[in-house]
């Protein structure tokens, strides 16, 4: 018999998992880029890698304190955004897409290559950088504490708390700037940058600000992402960027809460399907399928679920239906 309780409990855990928080934050960065400004950044995985490696390398190689390691990651992503943006933001939108996708791959390969093994750990990646962050943990209880399916030890509660606080702060920040005149300029650029230019706004500078801001969100997401796991270069493939785009479109591209809700739906569905399939195979419900094949099936099912949502709610879960009437 299938243990539905365990399936639902595992799925529910994904609601507040640090990975969900990390994807939500990275998707919020993409919302700024794509949803609000119309920038096609296909290198969000690169920004996340800079966060993960910036933090881990600063801690392991240079023994920086937590705050300095965070600053190194953020600084690296600002530089990365400038390098991507300076040559491309004056050109048509597609150039940024090409350059970001390539730059993110270059970063990943640099982190993977053996040449810098002593610093990057090459293909095996890095671990053992969590001490400084764990030392800041105000929770001191032993064992696990919690309610319902959410039972965690002190470190796990600490990373969830910090992860979601960062997500909430980023969401409030984004909400504030998007309702301000700054957001009006940004949305205008998405609609027609020449019109905005003709009104005396420095479009190039605004696009750069948007690229940096969304990139920094991606970088912070990369740091949250590695708190419950190790830094492994294989995690930062282009498919990561596409998952984040899927989350963004699922939730609603030009919304604040869309990326967060999208990330929760995505991870809950993924956990639900993988739990269900694994148990169904074990229970002999799917005799034609091996465990390995079943592991892939969950992505197919999530894909189908996302397709259904996009077909029946193309503006995303929280998107504005009215906008869709005017899509060219």
């Amino acid at each position, binding site marked *: 018999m299938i243990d539905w309780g365990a399936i639902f409990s595992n799925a529910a855990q994904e609601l507040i998992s640090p990975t969900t928080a990390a994807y939500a934050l990275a998707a919020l960065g993409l919302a700024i880029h794509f949803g609000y400004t119309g920038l096609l950044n296909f290198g969000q995985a690169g920004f996340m890698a800079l966060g993960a490696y910036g933090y881990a390398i600063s801690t392991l190689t240079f023994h920086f304190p937590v705050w300095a390691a965070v600053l190194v990651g953020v600084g690296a992503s600002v530089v990365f955004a400038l390098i991507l943006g300076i040559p491309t933001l004056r050109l048509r939108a597609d150039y940024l897409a090409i350059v970001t996708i390539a730059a993110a791959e270059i970063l990943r390969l640099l982190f993977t290559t053996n040449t810098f093994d002593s610093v990057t750990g090459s293909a095996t990646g890095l671990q053992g950088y969590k001490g400084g962050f764990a030392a800041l943990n105000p929770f001191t209880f032993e064992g696990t504490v919690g309610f319902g399916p959410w039972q965690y030890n002190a470190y796990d509660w600490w990373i969830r708390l910090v992860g979601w606080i960062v997500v909430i702060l980023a969401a409030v*920040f984004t909400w*504030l700037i998007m309702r301000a005149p700054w957001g*009006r300029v940004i949305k205008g650029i998405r609609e027609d940058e020449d019109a*905005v230019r003709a*009104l005396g706004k420095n479009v190039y500078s605004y696009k750069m600000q948007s690229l940096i801001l969304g990139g920094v969100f991606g970088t912070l997401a990369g740091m949250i992402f590695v708190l419950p796991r190790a830094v492994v270069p294989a995690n930062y493939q282009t498919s990561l960027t596409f998952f984040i785009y899927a989350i963004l479109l699922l939730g609603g591209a030009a919304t604040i809460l869309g990326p967060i809700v999208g990330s929760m739906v995505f991870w809950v569905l993924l956990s639900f399907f993988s739990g269900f399939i694994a148990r169904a195979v074990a229970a002999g419900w799917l005799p034609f399928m091996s465990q390995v094949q079943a592991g892939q099936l969950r992505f197919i099912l999530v894909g189908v679920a996302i397709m259904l949502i996009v077909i029946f709610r193309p503006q995303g879960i929280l998107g504005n239906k*009215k*906008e869709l009437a*005017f899509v*060219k």
Partner: protein
Amino acid sequence: MSSDVTPTATPVKTTGLHIGYAEPGCRKVDPILVADGVKRTFGGLTAVDVQHVEVPRGAITALIGPNGAGKTTFFNLLTGFDKPDEGSWEFDGRSLAHIPAYRVARMGLIRTFQLTKSLGLLSVLDNMKLGAKGQTGENLFRAILPFLWRSQDKEIEAKAEDILARFKLDTKKEDYAASLSGGQRKLLEMARALMSDPTLVMLDEPMAGVNPALTQSLLDHILDLKTQGMTVLFVEHDMHMVRHIADWVIVMAEGKVVAEGDPHTVMANPAVIDAYLGSHHDSDLGAEDPEHEHVLKELLDDQQ
């Protein structure tokens, strides 16, 4: 000619704008915009090749010419949206060469586009508010502190509503600009241009696609700009309109300025009729083109 005082309908024309004989490139008493040797080629095609032209301040100047004459390209060059191969041009005594478009706009030279550029997924009101200059809240760091920009934003909103009311768009202010009709978008673009209190407004075919009932009110708006002390340079194919409101007319053909003068004299100028006829012959090898015939009729009408 225009000072005969029929009530309201006949606008007051500004005269005495030029110095000497009204020929292509003639000097103006008080030019606001001066272009010198501005040339732009696309491959083998010379789209614009203007020796010298001056736009008079405080007047309404029409830029006319057949399709493909280079009017839009000239607009783009003057406003920093395109770069000429050579030449210099200045606005209000300041050189505009190598100045990016947004700075040109900040200097008080605002343009509209032939193909309307309304910001579809912004409300009509947001379209308008975007036009205002020097907004505190447009700085990223000040944006997060609403108390820094709230009161300024209120003032801008009041001004936007005022202008929208004049353009009869006030009932639409909460709608997406994308939901407006083509003509309404033309109105919105023009209204938006006024939000920054420009000194020179350049309108590229403001009347195209606007219905006759609205045309009259648009004309009044343009005349109103002049009363408020702004200078207007506009491109238009409708000769009636040109004759009605323009104080000065510049005629372009094949990239060059071929004639200048007050509307009535210019339209009687053989060079102008040639320009329209010439392009007619070139493009159609004598085939009948009803549109050009129409323009010619208007031109000839005017001679009588």
